[in-house]
Structures are given as C-alpha cells and as structure tokens.
C-alpha cells in the first residue's frame, strides 16, 4: 500500500473495497470530487479526496461539522469520512443537478431562479452562523442543485472564529471581504459578502470568471472590496436587486447586511412581483 494517496481515481476503480468510481465531478484547490457508488449500501454518492497534512485530525473535524450542520435541508449531507493513504475521503450526498457554476456554464439562468437558490443557501448559512461557524468558501461552485433545491456544500474551509478552530488557513480569496482578506476577520458578515459576490456572478451569468481572475489587478481590488467594479452589473439586473447586491458587498462591515437572514429577507422582497415593474418582471424571468 502506498504511503501517499494517489493523485486521482479512475472510473471503474474500487476504493476501500467500498466505493466504485463512476466519473470525476470536479477538481479544486483542496481536492477532487468523484461520483461513486457505495457498494455496501447500493447508493450513489459524491466522494471527495482531500490530501492534508494531518488526515486523522481533519477527519475528526469533518465528523464534528457533520454532526453540527447536517440534517439541515440546505446543507449537503456528509455521510462518512475515512482516512485513506494519507488523505481524507469524505462521502457526501450526490445531487444530480451539479453546481450552480455548472449550470451557469451550460445556460442562461433566470434571475428569479438564482434568487430562489440563494435564499435557500442563506438559510444554510444562518444555520451555520448560529453554531458559530463561518463558511469562507461561498461561491457558485459550492451551491449544489437538485431540481429547484439548492444546498450549500464544502465546509472544508470553515472556521469557528470564537475558538479559532479550523483545518486550513486557506479560504476563497476572490469572494473575501476586505476585513477577511486583510485582517483575517471572519464573521457572518464576511460570509454575507461572499454570498453577495456569488449573487452578482450568478445574476451576471458569468461564465467568464476566469477572465476576471486572470486580470492582475484582482487581488488589489479584493483588498479594497472593489472586485465588483471589474465585474460590472448586467443590463438585465433590476435596480432593486442591484441595490441589494451593493449593500451585501459593501466594503464597510457596518454598512453591509449583518446576517444571512437580513440579506435573505431583502432578496425575497426583490423577487416579489408586486415590487417590480413589467420590464423588471421580464428581466427576472417572471410571467407578466
């Protein structure tokens, strides 16, 4: 048996005599995700392979998080966690709709649907924040879809600010609020900032996010909370929604929505037919 986990798994491979690899689902900074069949339970799952310095400690934290967060309707369920050849294998529920990022790459997603997804994810964030947990990686790639249901995934970068407990110092920098990026100050408000950036990207239907990140100016803009200046606001975005996004990504914490709930309530108001004029309803994807 090798001392270090393989770089990846191949379709058809059997892992831990339990998981049959069907296909890769994605690859990120922290690991790879595969669509698998759990042969012991005859269920399809998503399996994440994370290579970390201390897999036993990492697994313990994952299990504690699962205990605390799972069971929420809008959090992707963590089913099991195993240590395997110097890595951690996390089995999660499989959602056949893929991520919001996947969908944005495939088609134009109506604004009303995006707001619907985000409202659900904001319930999940509030749930985490009520447990003292900050996600730190809210982005379209971590919003998993199944039908009209959205679930927040990948709590691998979470931090418990009160105690400092975390498994990594890494976090998703392009969506980081200025206080998080500059001072490592993570809070519910910093997750709200990331949710606002996610909403902006999604409503803009940004398939060209890589172009933004290939611009050398992006870290400096994130530092000041001004990456949105590089992104702009799509013409089809209703004015009310634009105001909400701007408040969610306000560089000044005191001027931002303080909680996921407050952002969710405003987003709800933005999607109510009665508050929109006919052109805005059309832009939102609502029937006239």
């Amino acid at each position, binding site marked *: 048996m090798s001392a270090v986990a393989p770089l990846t798994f191949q379709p058809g491979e059997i892992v831990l005599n339990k998981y049959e690899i069907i296909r890769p689902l994605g690859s990120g900074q922290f690991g790879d995700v595969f669509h698998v069949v759990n042969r012991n339970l005859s269920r399809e799952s998503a399996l994440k392979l994370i290579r970390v310095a201390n897999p036993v400690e990492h697994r313990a934290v994952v299990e504690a998080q699962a205990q605390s967060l799972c069971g929420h*309707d*809008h959090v992707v369920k963590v089913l099991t966690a195993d240590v395997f050849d110097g890595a951690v294998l996390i089995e999660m529920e499989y959602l056949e709709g893929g991520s919001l990022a996947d969908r944005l790459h495939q088609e134009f997603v109506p604004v009303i649907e995006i707001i*619907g997804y985000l409202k*659900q994810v904001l*319930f999940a964030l*509030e*749930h985490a924040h*009520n447990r003292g947990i900050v996600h730190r990686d809210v982005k379209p790639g971590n919003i998993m879809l199944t039908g*009209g249901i959205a679930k927040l995934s990948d709590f691998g970068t979470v931090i418990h600010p009160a105690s400092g407990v975390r498994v990594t110092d890494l976090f998703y920098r392009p969506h980081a609020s200025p206080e998080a990026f500059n001072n490592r100050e993570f809070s519910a408000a910093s997750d709200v900032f990331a949710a606002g950036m996610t909403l902006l990207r999604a409503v803009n239907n940004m398939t060209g996010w890589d172009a933004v990140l290939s611009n050398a100016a992006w870290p400096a803009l994130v530092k000041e909370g001004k990456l949105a200046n590089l992104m702009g606001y799509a013409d089809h975005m209703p004015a009310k929604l634009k105001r909400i996004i701007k408040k969610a990504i306000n560089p000044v914490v005191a001027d931002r929505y303080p909680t996921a*709930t407050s952002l969710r*309530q405003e987003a*709800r*108001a933005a*999607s*109510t*037919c009665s508050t929109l004029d006919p052109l805005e309803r059309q832009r939102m994807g609502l029937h006239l």
Partner: protein
Amino acid sequence: MAILGFNLQKGELHFCMMDGTRADPRYVAHDRHRFDVDQPKPEMANFFKQTFNELIEAQRPQGLAYRLSMDGKKADQIAYLTFPFGILSLVAHERGLTADQTTIHTFTKKALAHPGDKFTACDARIADSPAAWPNAAKLAALAAWMSL
C-alpha cells in the same frame, strides 16, 4: 418557562418570545418575517419550515404556541393562514416540543385576568412589554402567554 408564540396575517409571520408564568407573564422579544402569499405552496412550505427552525434555534423556547386565525374566506387566505401551522406542528414533533393552538376566543377576560380587551391586557399585564407594539405581535404574545 419560555414559550415562542406565532401569529399570521397576510404576508407576515409575527412571533413573540415570552417567559414567566400564566399569572406573571414577561415579554422577552418580538419581530416579524414577511413572506409572499403568491409563491407556490411548496416554496411557501419550505420557507416556513426553514424560518420556524431558524427561530427556534435562535430563541431556544421550551414550547411553541400559535394563534389560529378564523378569518380566511377564500382558499388562498385559508392556505397562508393555516398551512404554516401544520408545518409548525411537524417541526415541533421533530424537536420534541409542544405546539399549543389558540384562537381569538381563547383570550377571554377571565383567561387574561384583565377587565379590558386583550390588547390592553398585553400592555397592562405583561412585564417588560414594549411601549408601543403592533396588535399582530400582541396576538403572538397572547398565544405564548396562554401556554405559560
């Protein structure tokens, strides 16, 4: 003993956290969440399930209570005034909490030990109550009070 009371009106879920006893009720907090009455019923059901769970997590009551409105005349009104309390009952069951039902007829002078109407009773009999608060919130408080 802390009870979280709820009251619904069109597009608004009011809640009030109460403590103390039936004879000596005490106000803790109140607020409201707006909702869309025109949204599809499945979405509305999910909204209420998530919101009730969120409020229970935040307030940590020992029990729940709600004021069931008898005002609905049309199907849609009956839906948004009553369906949510079915959701609340299921959430209560899952959490091992009681969910007591009241109606406007529950809040009698005798029950409130107050000679005036139910809204003045809230101001006169509930300790620490706000100087000014809406009747819709008071109805949530009354529901909780009856369960203390």
